[in-house]
């Protein structure tokens, strides 16, 4: 057992989750692989969305995986950073829009 929560080498063992639940694991990976195929969105566009979400959910494995995936697809570092900002903007927006709730409550409680 490793003495830290995250080990980069664990990423390539991801597939092993099927060993403890064959059906659910397989269903998940089938779904996952299907999602990232070329579709109405290109695989390239979906890679950038995945990178942004990886940052928002703060998943180190996903960040490693989709930075590499982006490099493989010829995505530039400028494009990658803009995607991360798009994720960060939504995340901070999600925090700030609750400011309206705070304002409402403040106003309700105030004479």
């Amino acid at each position, binding site marked *: 057992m490793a003495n830290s929560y995250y080990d980069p080498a664990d990423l390539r063992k991801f597939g092993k989750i099927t060993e403890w639940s064959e059906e659910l694991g397989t269903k998940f990976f089938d779904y996952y692989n299907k999602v990232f195929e070329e579709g109405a969105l290109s695989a*390239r566009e979906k890679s950038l969305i995945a990178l942004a979400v990886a940052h928002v959910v703060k998943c180190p494995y996903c960040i490693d995986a989709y930075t590499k995936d982006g*490099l493989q697809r*010829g995505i*530039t570092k400028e494009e990658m950073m803009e995607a991360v900002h798009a994720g960060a903007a939504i995340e901070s927006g999600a925090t700030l829009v609750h400011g309206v709730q705070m304002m409402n409550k403040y106003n309700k409680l105030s004479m």
Partner: protein
Amino acid sequence: MATKSLKARHKALADNHRQLEILNGGIFDEGLLPYFKDKIAETGQFPLKPKRLEILQINVGYMCNQVCEHCHVDAGPDRKEIMTRETMGLCLEVIRNTGAHTLDLTGGAPEMNPDFRWFVEEAAKAGIQDFIVRSNLTIIKANKKYHDLPEFFKKYNIHVVSSMPHYTRGKTDKQRGNGVFDKSISALQELNAVGYGMPDSPLRLDLVYNPSGAYLPADQAALERDFKKALREDFNIYFHNLFAITNLPISRFLDYLIASENYEDYMYSLVEAYNPAAVQNVMCTNTISVSWDGWLYDCDFNQMLDLKVASKVKHIRDYNEDLLNDRKIVISQHCYGCTAGAGSSCQGVVA
């Protein structure tokens, strides 16, 4: 950015024995990853045997005007290994007597061999119809004596295959050296000007993309679309096809992988992406590689590892096609580079 070859810097990895030790040892020796021979044996493809010989790939010398970070040849201005006219004569003899229809000239920068043009002219007389020259593009701009190369290529209807790591300046210069991008763009425009790469033009101009780092190339068709769009919109440049080539873990690229602590991850990526269907069409099955000094190899990569063909015939002076066709192809763990994903060869994907 290095300006000298590993050889000139006396680096340990300039020694091919050391490279083979690494490729055969470590994660493979410990059983964490399977040896290439065991992997291809799973689908009954071991030993790997050649099919009909179609391409004679001749390395006319390791001298180059560039010192690219990933170069598997460890080429550079300081490399003095250059094919002589005498060895070229032996190659011409073979061209006259072989079934190979394509002559694929590589280096180094093949154009820097002082007898390059003579060789092309003589090979044309000897009956070669399909010429490929693997040009780094910047050579055309490197010196006045190379400025007319586009016209020379055109005269012999040479198929030009050029390296272009990315359609942005930053990524190109990082891999190949400062100023390489601008010179490459200018060279491509000159090739376009004489008709190369234009839609429907018989003058073939293809680009080679290989990743600038420890990752594999993604879908060749998608990359080609991106390259075409960007080069046309930004520079009004046209080309025919993009070949996505995987960097093989040898020579300077291996040195980089080890120094950047990416070697193990990269080998895992190659093995995970192993595609048995790609094995059938790897380039060693229809190509013979000839070194500057006339030795025969299954491919240019084996040439750099000094893994000569496993045949009684090992030198161009003793060339015998029947004997050679009966050989077993020499493999090691670098071969995973040609079988990853859609596969990789000097003509791009193979599966």
